[in-house]
């Protein structure tokens, strides 16, 4: 592994990295690299280290870590967020200070001593440090996505470059707990980043994700009625005496059968639904058939000849 290429304040960051690692190690605290530095250590995209260095520590070690870093010359800052503290290599928020984030409760991940000691070891800037697994890192990245910052670019890039290192089955379970994670799982499946179909097979048990994928071409066979199954249903509706009309369209939305079209009265409308329920027991039916009135008459005649 080559050296980090950090064009600005290289020395400051290098020093901050080495000193914080030494302080935590000498205090006997388990810790691991996370953030973009860890992604890079695992073979991911080259990080932009202008911002910060990230370490994961256990919640019960927070106070010990603070004093260890303070003793090593760092300025400790506790921001309003209760899931991390900051250690500055110089003065707090100083222009020449390097920032180290010590995170004990990252989104989507529980840091335990066991997790940290089991971390894969990597050589970073000539130091042997633990690095969070690609799956854990991706989960925390996905949990950081918000409506205001719904940028999937870096997570997709990460997933693509580390696809072999990601435990997709575990990721599917852990990422599908948020809308952004679910969307990400759809993206990696459709973009071919996740291994062929294993993701969607695993995710069949997730009702919300199944619903989300139900309208996706090529995935219906796993997540809802296939086009040919729908056609069988449409044929059966057309052939059943209770519903024989050309005006019922059968579709599927989010894993449910949807019925569109027209009926002349409420009874007819309900009958069509009964037919579908008897043909496809267990499937949700969304009856959007409207009852139409044809009692109006034309007010003008068309003059043909």
């Amino acid at each position, binding site marked *: 592994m080559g050296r980090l290429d950090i064009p600005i304040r290289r020395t400051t960051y290098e020093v901050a990295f080495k000193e914080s690692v030494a302080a935590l190690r000498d205090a006997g605290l388990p810790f691991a690299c996370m953030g973009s530095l860890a992604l890079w250590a695992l073979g991911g995209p080259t990080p932009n280290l202008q911002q910060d260095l990230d370490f994961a520590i256990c919640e019960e070690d927070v106070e010990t870590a603070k004093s260890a870093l303070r003793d090593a010359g760092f300025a400790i800052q506790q921001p309003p967020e209760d899931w991390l503290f900051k250690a500055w290599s110089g003065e707090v928020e100083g222009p020449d200070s390097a920032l180290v984030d010590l995170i004990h409760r990252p989104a989507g991940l529980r840091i335990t001593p066991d997790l940290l000691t089991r971390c894969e070891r990597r050589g970073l800037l000539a130091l042997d440090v633990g690095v969070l697994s690609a799956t854990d890192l991706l989960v925390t990245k996905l949990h950081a996505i918000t409506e205001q910052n719904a940028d999937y670019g870096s997570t997709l890039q990460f997933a693509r470059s580390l696809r072999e290192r990601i435990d997709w089955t575990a990721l599917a379970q852990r990422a599908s707990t948020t809308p952004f994670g679910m969307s990400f799982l759809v993206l990696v499946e459709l973009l071919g980043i996740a291994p062929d179909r294993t993701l969607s097979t695993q995710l069949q048990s997730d009702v919300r994700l199944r619903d989300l994928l139900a309208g996706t071409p090529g995935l219906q066979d796993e997540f809802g009625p296939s086009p040919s199954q729908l056609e069988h249903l449409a044929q059966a509706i057309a052939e059943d*005496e209770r519903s024989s*009309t050309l005006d019922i369209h059968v579709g599927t939305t989010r894993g449910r059968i949807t019925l569109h079209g027209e009926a002349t009265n409420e009874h007819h409308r309900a009958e069509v639904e009964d037919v579908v329920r008897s043909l496809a027991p267990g499937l949700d039916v969304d009856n959007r058939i409207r009852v139409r009135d044809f009692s109006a008459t034309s007010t003008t*005649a*068309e003059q*043909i000849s």
Partner: protein
Amino acid sequence: MIRIAAIGDVHVGLDDAGSIAPALVDLHDHADVLLIAGDLTRHGDPAEAEVLARELADVQVPVLVVLGNHDHHLDRSADIVRVLTEAGLQVLEGDFVRLELAGSTLGVVGAKGFGGGFEGACGSEFGEPEMKSFIRHTRGIADELRELVVAADADHVVALLHYAPTAETCAGERREIFPFLGSYLLGEAIDAGRVELALHGHAHHGTERGTTTGGTPVRNVARPLVGVAYRRYELGASRHAPANDGLRGLAPVPAAT
């Protein structure tokens, strides 16, 4: 002048009593004849035809109908014809009827028609017996229609079908099902005589107005399409208006509603 009321695809079911009659109470004020373009019933049950017959019982003008595919579903079309005929309706199955109306005669050529497709995308009498009999059925009806049209003797002639004689009035349906909606052979047959207006239904999601290849005005009166109890047409109204002579199908038309 002859005033025609027309509708198609009423698809009457056993629970539709009272759904049609109220809109027809003043029909005679607007029309001299009522033409119904097939799919009278929901699935071809004679009991459904009885419901329709009762709905039409108080109509004071002649009612002429053709059957549609739905009226054939239970293989009881003969019973349906009997029910409707006994109720005073005229069921045209490859028939010509001449009516004396308002001082002139109206000839109605009526047949169910069938599918097969339109120019450029047609089935042919080739291959399996089922395919051959499909197209043969259409050809048989079209040939019959042609003879009736050629021989039709009346001041005004109207063709009443269930299936479409032109692709134009099917536009709106999915292209893939056009061969099941009608046949250009029906249009050709209509063009063999002096039909002034061809009416049909069946293409519920089609287009209301079109012409045959030969220029005969075609109107799709499928009720789900027109959305009203019936459409009204007038024939011979412009007889004394030279500007419109010879421009069949191009006469200025008031917007229908």
